[in-house]
């Protein structure tokens, strides 16, 4: 084998250039011959260095060559096509089947192609839809019995639902377990009348063409209804014949945000969307085959005269053109990343890049090309390969004769493993660029599917790290972590051959949900744990799946199994699992599960929905969230007959009290029923008594009108109810008096023709009577309500002071010895500002202290001081002195008296 090396590298400021022609070093190695050449000009000066480096490169080539030997060069880029799986399936011939492969290493759906005439071996005439993982391990199968005509197209959506479109426009959906998802959808009437003939899928949508050359678009299968709602009919391009070929630009890459359909017609292309048809790219065609790149920017097309064109998707610019040997359109046309285009004819796979000679691969068996974001997976009857551009880091390490630091580091590890001192030499040489070498090794490890090679590369990186302190360690750890995840999902049983780039694009969360969807719960759980993601999703899904799958298991056993796993995750949503159990017809299990839900606001509504009102009420009460209690309360209130409702809340104090608060404000009558049913007569009495006030508020009812009667009746009714219980004697008497007072006030209003009595208190009524000069009426009220002499004196004195009837006041003071002394008289006069009147009564005050204060209040310091000295109260003296602090003369009086009393 002849290998030519061409490389730039810098060492000690000397640029070395190795090229053909100059000098040759030959060396036989594992049957290969390696030719190394050196740039002439520096031959001598660097020869020493070179011999040293040759030493390393040659030894390291043991591994390097075998790696690089599998690469193909397309112009200046290497491509490789490692085999990822040898397919586990048996007797699958892609040629006789319709095959749908999901991207991102997703599942493969296979069904016998009913548009081809195929020979049946020992098999049923009924077709089977079989679903495999990417390694050819069967996940599920089912017999295809769907009506609606031929299966026109089949494809996986982004969420791994298999979409099967049949002639009459019916869309059958299958999950990964080959279970038909109900209901089946429809493309609508126009597709029913004129059969569907072709479909182009993208992410989660499709564009279909029917026999009438009309086009229908489903932007998202999730929002599609059974009778064709959600199907968008695109503008009619008015075609006479079928277009030569079709392609779509996904909505996310178009300006309008709606899907754009490209139709090759004649020698031009029609761009069709919802609103119109537009001719583009006149003269590029006629085009036999088109395919849009992953980023929606470019279009690869095959012309009728055998040219491959790569054009920008707005047809403004031809990027490159390549003439193929055959004018026959390829069976499959696919993008490999964004760098090159693959064309597949019967037995040849041609890879064309913008420059240089295309690469050719030969296949005897039929293959399917599966475009991925960073390459193409090639599925044949026996293998799954991944065609990918060799990443730069890998090239830098394994390219034959590479002397990059990364290659030297990789070599150093090899020396080290063989206990060769050269290891150290290598390291010294790349000392300065060790970090980048380590990075390249780590990076290259990520791109490998082969586990032992991943390990060697990582070991090389790790070896380098030992000599280098300033590399970020977490990059290495992160890569190990990622690779463990990738290796786990790549194992044939799981069969998801993700490359590192695909994994990053797909994200760990989506990967985990795909694993869950495929019922790989354990792996999903471990990955979530390992990656520090929330395990709740996995456990929840597991629990729901378990419930669905364990129809025969008794509730108690199933509950134990479920709880055992559910408790793994803190804060898990028990309510949702319970809801699922309820929907699966296991109400008891649901009730048992919801018991474990810590979040009351989730638990309570669910308990209600499964008819556990009592439990819901208890939980709501415990939560302390009164809003939740109300929620339950209204729910039960609506559902149950009153008596049962009363019974339920009677036992729950909080619920009961909230009900009362609400009803007090809004539903009096119902509340009365409640209290009556509970035998709480005093509460009913209070309600009636309150109602009597509402009458009072009615302007028609107050102020001496006949409506007064009903109000008093209500109060008397309340009185009777109060009288029923011993504790309420006081209230009963009060109600009695209240009724009596109202009657009396009513009479007073009639007799005085003044509407000022009703709703004033007994004391106020007395005062009003006195102010009006109606002493007889006042006296009557006094005796009727047994008003004490004490209160009577205060009231009358104050009332007389109000009308400033000082004579009457004096007369009153002399009627008899006032029961509470002359204090009221003094206060009334002082408050009215009548010092003279006050002086009539102050001397009559019995308590010298009171006298002192009274004198002080009307500013008679000397008298105040005398009285205080009589009381021998020094504290009082101090206080009085303070109140006279503005008055120097008064202060001195106090001081002398205080001295006399012997107070300092």
């Amino acid at each position: 084998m002849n290998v030519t090396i061409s490389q730039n590298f810098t060492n000690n400021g000397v640029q070395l250039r190795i090229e053909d022609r100059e000098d040759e070093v030959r060396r036989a190695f594992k049957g290969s011959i390696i030719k190394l050449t050196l740039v002439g000009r520096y031959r001598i000066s660097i020869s020493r260095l070179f011999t040293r480096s040759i030493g390393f490169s040659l030894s390291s080539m043991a591994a390097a060559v075998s790696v690089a030997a599998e690469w193909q060069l397309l112009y200046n880029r290497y491509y490789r096509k490692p085999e990822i799986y040898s397919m586990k399936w048996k007797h699958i011939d892609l040629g006789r089947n319709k095959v749908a492969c999901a991207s991102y290493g997703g599942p493969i759906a296979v069904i016998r192609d009913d548009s081809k005439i195929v020979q049946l071996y020992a098999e049923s005439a009924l077709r089977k839809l079989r679903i495999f993982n990417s390694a050819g391990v069967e996940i599920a199968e089912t017999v295809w019995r769907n009506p609606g005509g031929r299966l026109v197209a089949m494809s996986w959506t982004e969420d791994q639902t298999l979409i099967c479109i049949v002639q009459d426009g019916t869309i059958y959906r299958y999950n990964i377990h080959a279970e038909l998802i109900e209901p089946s959808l429809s493309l609508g009437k126009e597709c029913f009348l004129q059969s569907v003939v072709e479909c182009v899928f993208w992410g989660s949508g499709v564009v279909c063409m029917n026999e009438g050359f009309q086009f229908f678009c489903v932007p998202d299968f999730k929002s599609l209804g059974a009778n064709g709602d959600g199907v968008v009919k695109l503008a009619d391009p008015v075609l006479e014949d079928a277009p030569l070929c079709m392609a779509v630009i996904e909505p996310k890459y178009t300006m309008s945000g709606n899907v754009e359909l490209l139709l090759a017609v004649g020698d031009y292309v029609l761009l069709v969307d919802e609103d119109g048809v537009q001719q583009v790219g006149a003269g590029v065609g006629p085009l036999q085959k088109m395919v849009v790149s992953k980023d929606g920017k470019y279009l690869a097309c095959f012309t009728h005269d055998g040219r491959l064109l790569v054009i920008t998707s707005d047809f403004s610019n031809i990027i490159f053109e390549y003439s193929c040997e055959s004018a026959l359109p390829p069976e499959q046309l696919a993008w490999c990343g964004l760098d090159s285009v693959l064309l597949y004819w019967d037995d040849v796979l041609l890879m064309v890049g913008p420059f240089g000679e295309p690469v050719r691969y030969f296949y005897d068996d039929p293959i399917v090309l599966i475009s991925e974001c960073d390459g193409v997976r090639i599925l044949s009857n026996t293998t799954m390969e991944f065609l990918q551009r060799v990443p730069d880091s890998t090239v830098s390490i394994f390219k034959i004769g590479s002397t990059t630091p990364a290659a030297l580091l990789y070599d150093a590890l090899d020396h080290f493993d063989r206990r060769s001192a050269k290891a150290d030499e290598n390291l010294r040489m790349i000392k300065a660029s060790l970090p980048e070498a380590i990075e390249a090794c780590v990076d290259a490890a990520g791109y490998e599917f082969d586990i032992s090679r991943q390990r060697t590369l990582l070991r090389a990186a790790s070896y380098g790290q030992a000599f280098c302190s300033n590399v970020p360690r977490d990059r290495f750890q992160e890569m190990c972590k990622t690779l463990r995840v990738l290796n786990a999902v790549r194992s044939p049983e799981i069969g998801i051959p993700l490359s590192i780039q695909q994994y990053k694009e797909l994200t760990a969360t989506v990967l985990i949900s795909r694993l869950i969807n495929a019922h790989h719960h354990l792996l999903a759980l471990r990955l979530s744990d390992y990656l520090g993601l929330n395990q709740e999703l996995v456990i929840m899904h597991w629990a729901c799946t378990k419930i669905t799958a364990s129809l025969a298991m008794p509730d108690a056993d199933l509950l134990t199994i479920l709880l055992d796993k559910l408790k793994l995750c803190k804060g898990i949503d028990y309510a949702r699992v319970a809801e699922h159990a309820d929907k699966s017809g296991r109400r008891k299990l649901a009730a048992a599960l919801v018991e474990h839900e810590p979040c009351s606001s989730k638990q309570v509504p669910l308990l209600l929905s499964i008819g556990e009102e009592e439990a819901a009420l208890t939980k709501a009460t415990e939560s302390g969230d009164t809003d939740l209690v109300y929620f339950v309360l209204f729910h039960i209130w609506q559902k149950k007959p009153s008596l049962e409702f009363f019974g339920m809340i009677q036992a729950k104090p909080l619920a009961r009290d909230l009900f009362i608060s609400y009803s007090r404000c809004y539903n009096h009558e119902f509340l009365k029923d409640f209290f009556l049913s509970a035998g709480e007569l005093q509460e009913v009495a209070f309600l009636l008594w309150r109602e009597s006030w509402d009458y009072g508020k009615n302007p028609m009812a107050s102020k001496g009108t006949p409506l007064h009667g009903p109000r008093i009746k209500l109060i008397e009714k309340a009185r009777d109810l109060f009288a029923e219980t011993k504790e309420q004697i006081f209230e009963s008497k009060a109600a009695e008096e209240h009724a009596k007072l109202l009657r009396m006030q009513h009479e007073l209003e009639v007799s005085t023709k003044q509407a000022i009595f009703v709703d004033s208190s007994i004391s106020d009524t007395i005062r009003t009577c006195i102010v009006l000069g109606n002493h007889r009426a006042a006296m009557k009220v006094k005796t009727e309500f047994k008003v004490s002499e004490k209160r009577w004196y205060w009231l009358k004195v104050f009332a007389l002071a109000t009308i400033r009837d000082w004579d009457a006041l004096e007369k009153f003071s002399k009627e008899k010895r006032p029961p509470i002394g002359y204090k009221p008289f003094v206060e009334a006069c002082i408050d009215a500002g009548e010092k003279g009147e006050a002086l009539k009564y102050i001397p009559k005050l019995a308590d010298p202290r009171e006298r002192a204060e009274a004198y002080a209040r009307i500013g008679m310091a000397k008298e105040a001081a005398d009285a205080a000295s009589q009381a021998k109260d020094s504290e009082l003296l101090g206080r009085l002195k303070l109140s006279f602090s503005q008055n120097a003369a008064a202060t001195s009086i106090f001081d002398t008296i205080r001295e006399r009393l012997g107070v300092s």
Partner: protein
Amino acid sequence: MAQIPNLDNAPINLASLREQSQRELITILKNIRGKKCLVIDPNLSGSLSLIVQTAVLKEHGVELRHLSAEPLETECTKVVYLVRGQLDLMKHISLHIHDNASKGLQRECFLYFVPRRSVSCEQILKEEKVHDSLTIGEYPLYMVLMDEDVISFELECAYKECLVDSDTSSLWHIAKAIHKLESSFGLIPNVRAKGKASLRVADILERVQTEEPVNVSDVLPEISTLILLDREVDMVTPMCSQLTYEGLLDEVLHVNNGSVELDASIMGVQQEGRKVKVPLNSSDKLFKEIRDLNFEVVVQVLRQKATSMKQDYADITTTTQTVSELKDFVKKLNSLPEMTRHINLAQHLSTFTSKPSFLGRLDMEHTIVESESYDICFEYIEEMIHKQEPLISVLRLLVLLSVTNSGLPKKHYDYLRRELLHSYGFEHMATLNNLEKAGLFRKQEMRSNWLTVKRALHLVVEDTDTANPNDIAYVFSGYAPLSIRLIQQAIRSGWRPIEEILKLLPGPHSESKRGGLSRGSSFELLSGVSNNVDKAAVGRRSIVLVVFIGGVTFAEISALRFLSSQELAAYDIVVATTKVVNGQALLDPFVEKLT
């Protein structure tokens, strides 16, 4: 000076909480395009004024109205109701919408609940068949920052609702608000609670924590201890007249959301009949200095300041000054407006404090607290009723008497109830019923243990020096508030040493550690605060959050500030309360307003 208090000196980053509330409100307003009429629950207007300035609301096209039963007069086609979840308000809104319909007004109505949607309110809207004509949302305002160390949940009826109606909605609200604080400042490791409602809040807080956990691991808790105290435990303190400057301002002028409104003439502005609003918060440096002092001392401090200023002024006019001295003087002059403001206020207050009736009342309060001469107290109250003095001030003394005696003898109880009904009207049958249900005014059924509590906790302190206080008793000139004594204990050493006393007070108590952070044996850690301080970086003071369920008075807040300002105290206290109250505000919801 702005009414919105400056929060820069807050011990924890409260400003960020307020900014969040601001943002949320503005977002709501922004999302409703164009001019709109914002109809607010009158009880929310105070809270809003502590969050955004009216000018900012106007910038967002807002026309502000108060919600009432009257039909809404506005040109706006968009109406935004911002209300708390109270049933009676729903009737008003329903009326408005029916009114719109009958007048054929095309109004787009939005209803935002504070702090969250309410099932019961929406039920009323459904019954009234207006639910569908409203776009319903929520404005999650769980608390309002009154000052740099005071948080209010704005639940002025919480106390009455809990005790009389057994409606514990407010407790959930409180727990949720504390949880919100925890999500900003970390899980509070120590929780001490006294009282039935407090324990329930602690319990709900635990539940909320399991439902929506605050991450224990990544946030180092900023607040080390949470103390929950029911107002029910100490109804004595709020019934007494507050004697600190701020407390007295509240008693006389009613501090409302951090400001008082009074006649312009009092503030020395010569405009007849006009009212002026005076903001009272820590942004006013002089107020910060004197708010917590006993009023007696405030007068002296103000006098000193005035004298020294006068002296400076004299110096300026007589001798030659250096420029820097002049500068200092001018600086001092800048504080002149604050000086004038507080001198005016203090003067206004002294006209009340010098009245014999005020002094007599103080005297009586002390007599009751000291549990001496029951008969004198009884007669004093009886006379107040006969004189028909304002009902609430009678009730304050009555409650004080009833609480300290654990009820009144049946004969007195029935007699006073009858006298009250006769003097103030039969509608107060409901008031009396409310008070009885709450245990505030009731029949004596057992011996009172007030004396024991008073002695054990040293509640009455003789010879209190109000000018240089060494004990919290200065706030009531000789009575150390029970609530603060309990908190003092709870901070210092937990409940353990006073368990016997706690049993004599209403409601259970509890003490718990959370978040699995417990280092060392749990009971040795009871002196949680000082321990935590040792562990925390030197110089960092630990923070205690004290939550009063049912309201707190300014005097109590002052006492707490006094505690944390003591030399040996290594903690800052943040007070949270359902509402800052005084005795009057506390009893007001109990008084039935039937007419």
